[in-house]
């Protein structure tokens, strides 16, 4: 382990925070300098991510690597313990790439009331929180980063959002905070019942002595914290509001990364530490997951606003991820992690496009749009590509999140009801048909036909250069991961088996 390996994870987490600090010193008028600082630092952070990718020991992906374990808060035995394994690595990179792309996308269009300096600082703080959450191996450290994400997003929605932004911002904030309160309660219970430690690795052993009934309660608290963040039906109501009101970049962060913090929490914390409780709760989680798939899809069919439609599609897609997790089988959880990455890329892209549409047409009403393929053919085709990816077309990334999740519910972990999970499988499969329905319907309304009269003579600019730069990597990744999914699976597989060790698969 060379010297940089020791610092790599620290750099991945704190470089954006350093950049935020530097930005504070740049005068407000010098916008180019602010953008340059943000870009250089986010690219450098991604560089650290690429370095991790090259140095990662793939044969040993079950093991935490680049571990740093220092003293932090002695009195509660909480340590600064970070490490990366096969599950966190793809998500970490996703978070890094998305941040760079958001900085690039924002380059020339800042949402009102402008103020790039503050907006960039919030993005950078957000990145520190997200990266930290994916790397933390100590519950208190995890909690701190998990909460750190909350404030920047609150301000992003509340200051730069749409007309109903204040309501959406506080709703997002209170929902998430309520979940966090129950989550920290469960963390404390784990600490006091599980051998006075917050270390996630140690708890995987020491928490096993907790009585089963207590485990069930602790798991329920964790479930509330994570399920609200995902969000699972019936805790999803904050999501459409937050997405609709958030500025484009805020929506992208929300869809691409923030939702994943919830599902990641299940895979990283809830299941490995409390496997028996997870086993007992799995059928209920599965039910909520498939309800989410169908409910999200039906919700989509009722939407007239493009962004709100994509928001509801997130509820459905996260349902597939949660179904994969609920099977507690290696295929299911591998699919879940893949699904997180794929949904991050695809839905992130869809929100980017929705933002660009809003900017050009001044509306996201699907009934007023139409004929994008004629008027802005490139953007129309990109929308088509992403819609195909999102509905799970084989050969694109979305497929590898959905299909194995459905497959895995044919054969869930030993002891779970086969009949029940096979029913889930059928329902989820029906959900994919709905998904094709609403996405193609959206595409049809937005892109096919001829432009509506009100925009027929307007000059609508096709894709801008910053948009090309921001979108190309995401589109390429959607294609590459679709064609060669093993890029992700060979990272995650070992770690997934490690996480499921106690369930005996």
């Amino acid at each position, binding site marked *: 382990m060379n010297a940089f390996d020791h610092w790599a994870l620290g750099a991945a987490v704190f470089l954006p925070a350093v950049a935020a600090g530097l930005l504070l010193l740049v005068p407000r008028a010098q916008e180019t300098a602010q953008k340059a600082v943000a870009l250089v630092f986010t690219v450098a952070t991604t560089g650290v991510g690429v370095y991790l990718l090259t140095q990662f020991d793939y044969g040993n992906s079950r093991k935490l690597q680049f571990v740093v374990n220092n003293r932090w808060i*002695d009195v509660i035995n909480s340590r600064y313990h970070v490490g990366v394994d096969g599950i966190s690595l793809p998500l970490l990179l996703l978070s890094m790439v998305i941040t760079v792309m958001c900085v690039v996308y924002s380059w020339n269009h800042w949402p009102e009331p402008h103020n790039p300096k503050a907006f960039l600082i919030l993005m950078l703080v957000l990145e520190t929180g997200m990266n930290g959450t994916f790397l933390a191996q100590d519950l208190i450290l995890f*909690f701190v980063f998990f*909460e*750190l994400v909350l404030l920047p997003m609150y*301000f992003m929605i509340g200051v730069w959002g749409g007309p109903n*932004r204040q309501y959406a911002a506080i709703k997002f904030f209170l929902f998430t905070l309520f979940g966090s309160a129950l989550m920290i309660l469960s963390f404390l219970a784990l600490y006091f019942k599980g051998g006075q430690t917050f270390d996630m690795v140690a708890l995987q052993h020491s928490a096993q002595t907790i009585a089963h009934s207590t485990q069930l309660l602790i798991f329920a608290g964790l479930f509330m914290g994570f399920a609200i963040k995902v969000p699972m039906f019936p805790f999803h109501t904050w999501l459409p509001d937050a997405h609709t009101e958030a500025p484009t970049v805020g929506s992208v962060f929300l869809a691409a990364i923030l939702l994943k913090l919830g599902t990641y929490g299940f895979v990283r914390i809830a299941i490995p530490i409390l496997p028996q409780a997870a086993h007992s709760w799995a059928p209920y989680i599965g039910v909520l997951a498939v309800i989410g798939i169908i409910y999200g899809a039906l919700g989509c069919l009722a939407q007239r606003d493009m962004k709100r439609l994509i928001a509801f599609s997130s509820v459905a897609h996260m349902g597939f991820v949660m179904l994969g997790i609920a099977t507690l089988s290696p295929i299911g959880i591998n699919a879940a992690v893949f699904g997180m990455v794929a949904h991050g890329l695809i839905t992130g892209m869809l929100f980017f496009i929705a933002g660009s549409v809003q900017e050009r047409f001044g509306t996201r009403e699907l009934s007023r749009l139409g004929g994008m393929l004629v008027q802005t053919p490139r953007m129309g085709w990109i929308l088509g590509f992403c819609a195909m990816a999102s509905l799970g077309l084989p050969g694109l990334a979305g497929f590898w999140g959905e299909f194995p999740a459905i497959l895995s519910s044919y054969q869930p972990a030993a002891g779970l009801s086969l009949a029940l999970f096979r029913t889930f499988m059928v329902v989820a499969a029906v959900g994919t048909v709905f998904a094709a329905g609403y996405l193609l319907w959206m595409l049809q309304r937005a892109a096919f036909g001829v432009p509506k009269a009100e925009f027929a003579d307007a000059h609508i600019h096709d894709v801008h250069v910053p948009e090309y730069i921001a979108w190309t990597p995401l589109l390429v990744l959607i294609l590459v991961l679709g064609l060669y999914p093993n890029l992700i699976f060979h990272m995650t597989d070992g770690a997934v088996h490690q996480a499921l060790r106690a369930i005996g698969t």
Partner: protein
Amino acid sequence: MLAAAVAASTSAVAPHFKAPILDYHALAPEIVLTGVLGVLLLVDLVVGERERWATSTIAGIGILAALIPVFTLGVRSHPGSMFGGAYVVDNFSLVLKALFLVTGYVVVLMSSNYIEEGDYYEGEFYFLLVSSLLGMVVMASARDLITIFLALELLSIPGYLMAGWRKRDVKSNEAALKYYLLGVLATAVMLYGMSLVYGYTGTTLLTGIGAKVGGSLTGHPILSFSIFLVLAGFAFKVSAVPFHQWAPDTYEGAPTPVTAFLSVASKTGGMVAILELVYVGFLNRHDVWAPLFWALAALTMTVGNLIALRQTNIVRMLAYSSVAQAGYMLVPFAVAGDNVKARGTAFEATVVYLLIYAAMNLGAFTVVITVARKTRSGEISSYGGLFEYAPGLTVLMTVFLFSLAGVPPLAGAWAKIFVFRAVLDSGTTAAVVLGVIAAVNSVIALFYYAGVAREMWMRPVPDEDRTPISVPPALAGALAATVVAVLAVGVYPNMLVRFGEISSLVK
């Protein structure tokens, strides 16, 4: 004949009187402050009206000078004990002396422009401020009922005067009068309790009282009553519900730097006295004080927060918020008697809370003073759109408010987590119920703190006046010091927690 009488009386007294051995090093902070008091009076007498600002500088430098012996004493390994144990300089007293002095220094920074530009008496103001500070520094070392009483009066009486410093303003007069009358009443109650305690135990030394209270006098009803009276007197000082009525009016009417001083330093002074009395004097009678503190804590948190929700004036809101914060500080007392482990963690929790609370509350008040320089208003609505013309102040205020609310990774979150740790270490049903009340209250509190944040970030500017706010260097210094403390402790709480550990009076 006269000479003979004097000789006789001297010889009669001499055998009884032994000159106390003074440890001048241990007394150095107090001596320095007393010196500063003298210098302030002289300078105020000598310099002209235009040079009165010098008194602020002298007070500031004097307070920093008093910090030097605190540090050298910290390096010195052995504690100092004087007057038969009535005056002790140990880690606890040093940590709190440092806190008082730093708080005092920040308050001087906050005051210098306010007092100068408001055309108030300057020399006298700093004289009173330093006097009150001297009382607090003495309080940190007091281990004897009489010393505690002296310290309390020395820190309170200048406070009564300073609260009325805007003497042409009716609200300020009301503030001072209310504070004075209720303060005197509380003192009377407390003195009555102290006299009963002395009557039953025969000593004013806290260690002596501790030995008696645990031993031969356990369960005596009058003693229980007198403990109740003493603690009720201090409950007034820390503005615990139902002894809080003076606080909002006094806080609103007093000059804002004085409000900051009262809500941080004066409250800490009362809390220090409670720590000494409870953990040294009355430790074995937790059957009396634990339920008392349980009720005080639950009421103080809930009432403080609920009333804070309805405030439209920022100073009144911060006043009620500081009432609620006192409630969180009282929670550990309610669980301290349950077992030995909880006793230790409860003590630490209160000390750590005091240290963190000082930084975040002073910071919030400094922002209020700075913003009021432009808006001339204390209404929360006058903060609308602050982000558009004063982004730096907005960010700072947001940090302080969310820290007060207890959102990680800011310092205030750790303060609350340590309180919860004490609660869980106790583990009794009553403790857990109190913990739940505290948790619910933290969520309620978020509403009004976030309400101010929303006003600053998301609302339009009420009067369309977007001229930037100038921040004088003194206020900038105060802001920098407090925000660095809040963020640094937030990221690395260990450095503060150590103070909690080493300062423990619980052995």
